[in-house]
C-alpha cells in the first residue's frame, strides 16, 4: 500500500467499512507513514466535531403550522380542481365553435374567389370569352347618347 491508495481507505475506515485484510493493511501503512497517520488523526478529529455538533433543543413543534398550511394548500388545490373541471368542460365546446367558424370563413373566401358553376355553364354555352369579374361594363351595357336623359326610367 502506498500513500495514494491509503487515502480513500481512510474515508471508508472512518465509516467502519473495511474488511479485515484492508484494515490490517491500512494499519501497517499508518504505522510506517507519519504523513498518513497525521491525516488519519485529523480526519478522526473532524468526525468527532461533526458528531458532537450540539442540538439547541429549543425548536418547537411545527405541527399546528403544518396543519394550517395543509388546509390552505388543500383549499388551493380544490380551487385548481374546479378550474380544471370547468376548463375540461368548456374546451371541447370552444374547439368545436372555433372549427365551425374557421370552416365558414374558408368556405366564404373560396366562394368569393371562384366563379359559380352556373356562370361557367352559361359562358361555355354561348362560346363567350372568359371575362374577369368587374371588367369593362361598356361591353355589356349600351352607352347612352350625351345629354339625352334615359326616358325608360319613369319619373315620379
Amino acid at each position, binding site marked *: 500500500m502506498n500513500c495514494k491508495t491509503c*487515502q*480513500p481507505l481512510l474515508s471508508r475506515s472512518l465509516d467502519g467499512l473495511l474488511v479485515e485484510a484492508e484494515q490490517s493493511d491500512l494499519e501497517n501503512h499508518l504505522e510506517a507513514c507519519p504523513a498518513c497517520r497525521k491525516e488519519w488523526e*485529523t480526519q478522526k478529529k473532524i468526525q468527532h466535531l461533526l458528531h458532537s455538533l450540539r442540538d439547541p433543543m429549543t*425548536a418547537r413543534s411545527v*405541527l399546528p403550522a403544518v396543519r394550517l398550511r*395543509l388546509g390552505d394548500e388543500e383549499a388551493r388545490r380544490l380551487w385548481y380542481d374546479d378550474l380544471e373541471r370547468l376548463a375540461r368542460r368548456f374546451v371541447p365546446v370552444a374547439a368545436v365553435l372555433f372549427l365551425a367558424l374557421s370552416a365558414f370563413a374558408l368556405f366564404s373566401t373560396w366562394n368569393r374567389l371562384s366563379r359559380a358553376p352556373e356562370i361557367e355553364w352559361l359562358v361555355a354555352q354561348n362560346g363567350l370569352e372568359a371575362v374577369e369579374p368587374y371588367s369593362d361594363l361598356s361591353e355589356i351595357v349600351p352607352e347612352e347618347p350625351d345629354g339625352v336623359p334615359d326616358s325608360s326610367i319613369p319619373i315620379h
Partner: protein
Amino acid sequence: MLEAGPDEHTLIERVQHGDAEAFEILVQTYEPRLLAFLAKTTGSPDMAEEVAQETLVKLFFKAHTFRFRCSLFTWICEIALHTFFDLRKQRRRWLKKHQVADLGEPCRAPDHSPGPAEKAERFEVDEIVRSAIAQLSPDHQMVILLREIQGASYDEIATVMNCSVGTIESRLFRARQKLRTILTPLLESHEL
C-alpha cells in the same frame, strides 16, 4: 434496506392515499428527530422550525413518490436538506441585496454545558464547523450531513441521491478532504 415495520409501512401507504390522520401520526413520530437533525445542521432553532414546516408540507404531497427503498427518515432528511439549502440561498440573496451582514442566529435558550467560557467556545467551534460544511458543494454537504449527522448508510444515501454507492464513497472521500483543508486552522488554533 427496508427499515419500516409493518405498522409504519401501512401508515405510509395511508398517507400516500391522502389520509390526513395517518399523516398526523407520522409527523408526531418523526418531528422530534427531524427538528433535532435540523437544529444540529442549521444551528438555529428558528431555521430548524421553518425548514421542518416546509419539509412536512412537502412530505404530505410527495408521499406517493416514496418507494420504500430506504428508511422513511433518511428520505425526510434528504427533502429537509434540499429545503434548507434553498431557504439559505434565498436568505443570503436577500441579505446581499439589502447589504446586511449574516450574523447567524443565536440559540433561543442556553445550553446545559458546564461553564460559560466552555459553552461559548463550543458554540464558536460548532459555528466554524457548520460554516465549513456550508462551503462545500450541495452534493458534498448532502453526503456529509446524511452520513455524519443522520447516520445513513452508503446504500441509503445512494438511493435518496439517485446514484451509485461508488459515487457516494468518492463524494464522501472528497468532502472529507475539503473539510480537512478548511478546518485545519481551527484544529491547530483550538488544539482540538
